[in-house]
């Protein structure tokens, strides 16, 4: 029987990690992830998991220890936020290049300076090219469900890649919500036991991992990482299907909301998608055909499927909670690429919002929908990239 609880996003993900019972967890505290790892460390000290907890002196070391543990043949996890993820950056590429299926919840936080501890997507977007799979989560339930599903994707023998599960710092990590937990045994059976591939601790078969590779082979290695990534979509869908059988909850590569007959749409990640859905209902009641697409799998990016889902629209606004200064936001460029592949030509604009935890209110979704209505009525775009809810 599943159990209904009122918990924070951090608490829900910590509980998923307890149910997974990894071999090794190496972590360093950083707001807003601290509370997640503190809870997991309590599970370790209370003997509720068999995990070896390694307290390290930095996130660079946390990821390095996970790489060592995973290369040795263990199931390794960590979690981080914002500057912690930035400090891991070098080792993120080592984890993916060595094809180690490490699981890392990322409690999304802004990057300094100015110093800010609140939620935005600058951290994970900065790591989007690191060869990690990325799943994004709207609320505590999705963060829990994605964490449970993550290892099945990462550890699939066709994949063997590390995976991040993203949720919004504070907005989700520190808010209490209704969450349905699966039974411990159900999760245990779903995740299964870990099958290491070429573990270093198999001393009868000595090998080296991650050695020097000169220009005559490096490109082939990188090509193989892309090949593995290209198989992730199918595995994500298979995993979602199995997950639906144990939970009753349905997941895909992305979620659409009232999109099929829509003329205009908002594309948005994580917690702000929920607020947007409520505003879409208000406009639908007024007869405005507006819908939403919320990516779940951001790396690898499902270009064809997203393009198909959006190609019938007249105008789209992509909202980014991360900026690329002097360029479009990271989600915008993926959406435009997706649509370009379909040969369709809706107008696509970009809004940067919510940086450093600035609240995304229903009012902001209304401003965007009104602008999209204006664009399809007049055919005119004021600015392709603009900022939402900012004091100019």
């Amino acid at each position, binding site marked *: 029987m599943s159990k*209904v609880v009122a918990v924070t996003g951090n608490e829900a993900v910590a509980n998923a990690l307890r149910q997974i019972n990894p071999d090794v967890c190496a972590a360093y505290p950083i707001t807003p992830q601290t509370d997640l790892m503190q809870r997991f460390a309590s599970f370790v000290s209370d003997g509720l998991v068999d995990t070896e907890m390694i307290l390290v002196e930095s996130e660079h070391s946390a990821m390095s220890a996970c790489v060592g543990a995973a290369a040795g043949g263990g199931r390794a996890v960590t979690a981080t936020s914002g500057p912690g993820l930035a400090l891991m950056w070098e080792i993120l590429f080592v984890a993916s290049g060595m094809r180690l299926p490490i699981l890392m919840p990322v409690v999304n936080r802004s990057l300094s300076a100015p110093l800010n501890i609140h939620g935005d997507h600058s951290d994970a977007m900065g790591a989007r090219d690191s060869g990690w799979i990325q799943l994004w989560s709207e609320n505590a339930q999705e963060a829990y469900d994605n964490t449970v599903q993550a290892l099945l994707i990462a550890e699939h023998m066709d994949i063997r890649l590390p995976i991040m599960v993203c949720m919004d710092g504070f907005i989700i990590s*520190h*808010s209490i919500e209704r969450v349905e937990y699966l039974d411990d045994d159900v999760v245990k059976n779903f995740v299964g036991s870990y099958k290491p591939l070429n573990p270093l601790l198999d001393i009868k078969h000595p090998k080296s991992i991650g050695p020097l590779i000169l220009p005559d082979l490096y490109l082939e290695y990188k090509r193989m990482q892309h090949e593995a990534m290209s198989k992730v979509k199918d595995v994500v869908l298979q995993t979602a299907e199995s997950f639906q059988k144990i939970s009753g909850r349905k997941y895909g590569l992305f979620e659409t909301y009232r999109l099929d007959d829509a003329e205009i749409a908002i594309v948005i990640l994580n917690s702000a998608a929920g*607020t947007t859905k409520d505003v879409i209902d208000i406009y639908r009641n007024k007869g405005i055909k507006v819908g939403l697409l919320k990516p779940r799998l951001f790396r690898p990016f499902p270009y064809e499927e997203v393009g198909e889902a959006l190609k019938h629209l007249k105008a789209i606004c992509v909202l980014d909670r991360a900026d690329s200064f002097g360029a479009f936001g990271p989600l915008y460029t993926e959406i435009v690429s997706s649509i370009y592949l379909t040969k369709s030509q809706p107008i696509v604009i970009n809004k940067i919002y919510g940086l450093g935890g600035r609240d*995304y209110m*229903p009012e902001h979704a209304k401003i965007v929908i009104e602008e999209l209505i204006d664009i399809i009525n007049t055919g005119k775009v004021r600015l392709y990239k603009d900022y939402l809810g900012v004091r100019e």
Partner: protein
Amino acid sequence: MSEILEIRWHGRGGQGTVTAAKVFADACLSGGRHVQAFPEYGPERAGAPLRAYNRISSHELRMHCPVLNPKIVVVADPTLLDSINVTEGAPDDAIFIINSSKDPSIIKAKINPTKNQKVFMIDATKIAIECFGRPMPNSPLVGALAKVSGAVTLETILEDVKKSFGKKFAKKIIDGNLEATKRGYEEVKEI
């Protein structure tokens, strides 16, 4: 969206206001409802004004942003009435629950409710001191909110207050808080 009960709490850092919002949300889980409890995070200093929020609904709660138009406003610290506008965004049928020992006419004048707004008072700090010897008004306020909102029964809220203390506290403190919650439920009055 009218079926969502939205609550805003005004308190000061260190008073247990955030915990009160969490306990109330937990108690409202019964009956398959969806709940949210979250504070507004700022610099976390003892004594600084803070806000916390609840949403309670029979449907999935998708909105992830502060409550702008609370149906119920709970003020845990009466001195806040002089420094912030606790009626901000409150709709015409809003209900205020004020922790105060002052004369009801003084409180009513400070709130200055519109025709359909209701003001309730409870001397939660006094109840807390009498029940467990500390000026922590959250338990009586949770009791008062349970009564005024009708969202949860006294039995359920008492069970949840007990659960929220876990095994960390002495029996005397837990019993005192249960008594305080019960008195909050029974003694809250419309003014």
